């Protein structure tokens, strides 16, 4: 006699949970994807974009800046009126959208690289110091982190763009401001639990200095978490860069960036949709891919971060 007795177990997947999980139910609720398969499609998309960025001069059929006004606003090749010369069409100045897209990937990735290094690095240092030193240092730093969470960093980024002028440096500083607090908060939490561990106590007993312990015992143990955070934040940086470019506070024209391309194209949305919509597809695909890849990496390296 088989009794269908599962009135409250709406969870078909959970049947596959380990016994250990049943005895000790996970406090951290699972993400949307439980089985972590290698995300090949996102990896492929990311690879394509990285290759585009690295070899832009070789891959781009045209200059991303030079204007060919007689070829302006041509639709993509597959559409009526499209030309084989310009696969994704041209913008209002007759510039090849494909070429601009390829060079735009460069800007996105350079900004991501620099901002993650700077912002993530600051966050890492603040997190380690705050977590390890504790006390007043910790409470002051954490108040700062709270403040940074309360105020939209975009506002400061706009202010910087106006006062310092547009450019790569301004952009990187602005986006670093956006990043450091979330890095600091997570890393600090990690350090707080590391501090309780035996090897740290042992190092202290041996007479290691605090900076030495932070550098040789704490830092290597938070690098996994740091890498996961970096990956999960690539998307944040790309969106922030595009948003600032869109608002006229990014890298100034004529350098092609994806956000700027959307901004320039949105006025012509009625007669030339491809100018604004194609770069947006590129951004969405890129961000989606790095987020899916980041989720997978997090599940592999540091599942506790799921609650973020």
């Amino acid at each position, binding site marked *: 006699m088989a009794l269908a007795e599962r009135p409250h177990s709406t969870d078909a997947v959970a049947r596959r949970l380990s016994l250990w999980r049943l005895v000790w139910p996970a406090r951290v*609720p699972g993400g949307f994807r439980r089985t972590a398969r290698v995300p090949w499609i996102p990896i492929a998309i990311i690879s394509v974009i990285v290759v585009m960025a690295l070899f832009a001069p070789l891959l781009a059929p045209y200059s991303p800046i030079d204007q060919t006004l007689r070829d302006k606003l041509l639709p993509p090749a597959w559409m009526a009126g499209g030309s084989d010369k310009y696969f994704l069409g041209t913008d209002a100045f007759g510039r090849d959208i494909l070429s601009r897209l390829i060079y735009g990937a460069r800007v996105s990735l350079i900004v991501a690289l620099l901002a993650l290094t700077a912002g993530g690095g600051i966050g890492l240092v603040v997190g380690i110091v705050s977590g390890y030193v504790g006390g007043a240092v910790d409470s002051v730093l954490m108040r700062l982190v709270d403040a940074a969470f*309360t*105020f939209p960093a975009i506002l400061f980024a706009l202010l910087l763009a106006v006062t310092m002028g547009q450019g790569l440096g301004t952009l990187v500083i602005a986006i670093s401001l956006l990043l450091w607090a979330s890095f600091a908060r997570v890393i600090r939490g990690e350090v707080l639990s590391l501090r309780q561990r035996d090897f740290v106590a042992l190092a202290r007993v041996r007479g290691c200095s605090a900076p030495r312990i932070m550098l040789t015992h704490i830092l290597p143990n938070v690098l996994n978490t740091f890498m996961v955070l970096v990956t999960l934040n690539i998307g944040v940086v790309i969106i922030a860069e595009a948003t600032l470019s869109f608002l006229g506070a990014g890298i100034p024209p004529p350098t092609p960036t994806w956000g700027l391309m959307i901004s320039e194209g949105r006025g012509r949305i009625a007669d030339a949709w491809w100018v604004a*919509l194609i770069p947006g597809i590129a951004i*969405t695909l890129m961000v989606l891919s790095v987020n899916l890849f980041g989720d997978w990496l997090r599940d592999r390296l540091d599942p506790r971060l799921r609650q973020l």
Partner: protein
Amino acid sequence: MKRYIARRLMQGAILLCMVATIVFFLGRLTGNPVDLMLPEDATPEDRTALIQTLGLDGPILDQFAIFVGKAVHGDLGMSIRMKQPAVEAFFDRLPNTLVLIPWAILLGMMLGIPLGVVAALNRGGMLDRAAGTVAVLGVAMPSFWLGVLLIFVFSVELGWLPSGRMGGPSHYVLPVITLGTFLVAGFMRITRSAMLEVMESEFVKLARIKGLSEAVVIWKHCLRNALIPVLTLWGVFVGNLITGAIVTETVFAWPGIGRLTYEAVIYRDFPLLQAVIILKSILILSINLGVDILYAYVDPRIRLA
């Protein structure tokens, strides 16, 4: 409770001072701020006159004192482009944003919270996966592009909805969707994970032991607890909404404070931008204070502590 609110007010005041200080000194980053405050075609006489009226020829700390003194009296300088006090320009535009934001929040909550609950109840099922896809996409799409896409589909191609400017109810649809999408995704994610955690707890078991119906167990006992973490994220949401409003109002030519921010940036109207940032900070802090009070109402452990 009173002490709790008082403490929050104090923290808010300190934060505000920090913002004002940062804004002031950032303005000095590239030399004399009069260069930022004057139109490009200003004469040297204009420059000297402004320096004197603003007291910018004194030491920097005196200047700061003047800035603070004026700010306290509601004077944050003149907008270059609009030729009107920046504070006034802000308050002229504020109502237009305030009629937009509640709808976006409503959309986010009405859609995001129930979807989160349903996703949690169907964990691993089709609905859960569909909701997860929406959440992932909602985060990956830049909202300004979503706005442009919506205009293309619903205004240009289908011709159903107006593409911008304020007007009747139909004018609200696309901006509200653009502004609310990330809220839907955010509310859903948090509600879902909070629900999953709450549903495992012992008090839910006791509620079932009492023989309560599943609807009461889920929507009363579980959801009320799950809303606590949802509320804690409000601070982040409010910040996002302010940013989102800049982008959305820019895309839809909506004459609110977001669009005003954008205009201040592209016209390099520093006094206006400075005022907008300080006033927005006050706005954010007040909303956060309100949320904190609401939070205390939902969680008696804080209210009665």
